[in-house]
């Protein structure tokens, strides 16, 4: 009910647009493309008459420009009409119609060129075929008018029906947010890896310090073991119990947990 009210009072609010544009928007786009293609053909005929000395490439460029301007003028007109209905203060009553008038002037000029085409009369004077002047409204020129009007209406109504800056902002911000999300995810991944690597180097240094302490103790212990080994070798070579007894104190007399005090 609220949505219907919004549509009635001209607001752009329409939550259903979150799901995407309606199918009609695609139909409008296809119709507009088809109409534009037809317009290109008819405008080419007109401009070939108006620019007889220009080469085909120049005529083609002008034709596309002409058709583009014609469609854009009516698109703007439709858009501004919709904006006005949405009660946007910046659109005056006359403003959309200015675009319509411009569009009409463009079409009228083309139509005039089209009907003022010189027709060969078939009468030859002094070796030259005579051409008749004046305006010649032919079925082709009427078809041109019909196509021009049709394209203009499609552009006008289509723009009026599909124009919604709020949806445009929604879609734009949605994709920008998706992109920002992905960039943030990548950034978090890189940051975590970088931070982890940094911590790993710190841990490695701490581990190296611990290894240093342990290795130092091991070398000291090995030194003591070597001293013991030296005494053993002396005892072995001496083959004298008194000597052996003197070199190795009775460990049973030592308090537990203390090593032998070497003499």
């Amino acid at each position, binding site marked *: 009910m609220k949505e219907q009210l919004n549509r009635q009072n001209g607001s752009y609010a329409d939550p259903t647009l979150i799901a995407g544009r309606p199918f009609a928007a695609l139909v409008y786009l296809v119709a507009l493309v088809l109409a534009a293609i037809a317009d290109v053909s008819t405008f080419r005929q007109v401009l070939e008459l108006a620019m007889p000395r220009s080469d085909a490439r120049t005529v083609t460029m002008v034709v596309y420009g002409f058709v583009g301007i014609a469609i854009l003028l009516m698109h703007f007109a439709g858009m501004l009409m919709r904006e006005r209905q949405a009660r946007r203060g910046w659109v005056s009553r006359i403003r959309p119609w200015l675009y319509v008038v411009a569009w009409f002037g463009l079409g009228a000029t083309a139509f005039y060129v089209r009907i003022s085409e010189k027709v060969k009369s078939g009468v030859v004077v002094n070796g030259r075929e005579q051409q008749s002047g004046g305006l010649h409204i032919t079925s082709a020129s009427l078809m041109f008018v019909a196509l021009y009007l049709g394209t203009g209406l499609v552009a006008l109504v289509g723009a009026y029906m599909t124009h919604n800056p709020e949806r445009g902002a929604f879609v734009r*911000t949605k994709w920008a947010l998706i992109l920002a999300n992905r960039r943030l995810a990548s950034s978090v991944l890189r940051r975590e890896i970088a931070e982890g690597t940094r911590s790993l*180097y710190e841990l*490695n240094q701490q581990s190296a310090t611990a290894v240093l302490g342990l290795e130092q103790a091991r070398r000291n212990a*090995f030194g003591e073991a070597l001293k013991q080994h030296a005494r053993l*070798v*002396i005892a072995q070579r001496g083959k004298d119990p*008194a000597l052996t007894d003197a*070199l190795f104190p009775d460990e049973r007399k030592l308090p537990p947990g203390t090593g032998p005090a070497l003499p």
Partner: protein
Amino acid sequence: MGRLFETFRLRMWVFLARLLPGSLVYWLPQPRPFEPRAIDQAAARREIEAIVGVLAPDATDEATGHVMDRLIDVWTEAWVAELAVDFQRHGLRNARTAMIAAALAAREAVLNTDARRRHDELTMAHQAALNALISPND
């Protein structure tokens, strides 16, 4: 030659860190563990046996058990000094790469702040656009 290679390796990492800082995060080399040179214990024992073999049994008695102690103490001091040298070398070898790792981590933290701020701003913008599409503004 090894030292030259080590210098080249470190310079290469610094160069890559400047050229591809984002990618380098993923393939920065693992830190090398501290592996000091091992003592040749068998050789030390053989040396002791050889020296004592010269002395014993004629030049030893009950009072000469300590005859090798001073020598062994000196050896131990040498081994500990070697260990300290190895430790210093290990620290220097890892220092440059550790510095690069710390620099990359700092860089990523700054970039992450930017990415998070951009994300927060766009979340607000998207919420505003959604509100405008859902509720009429007049």
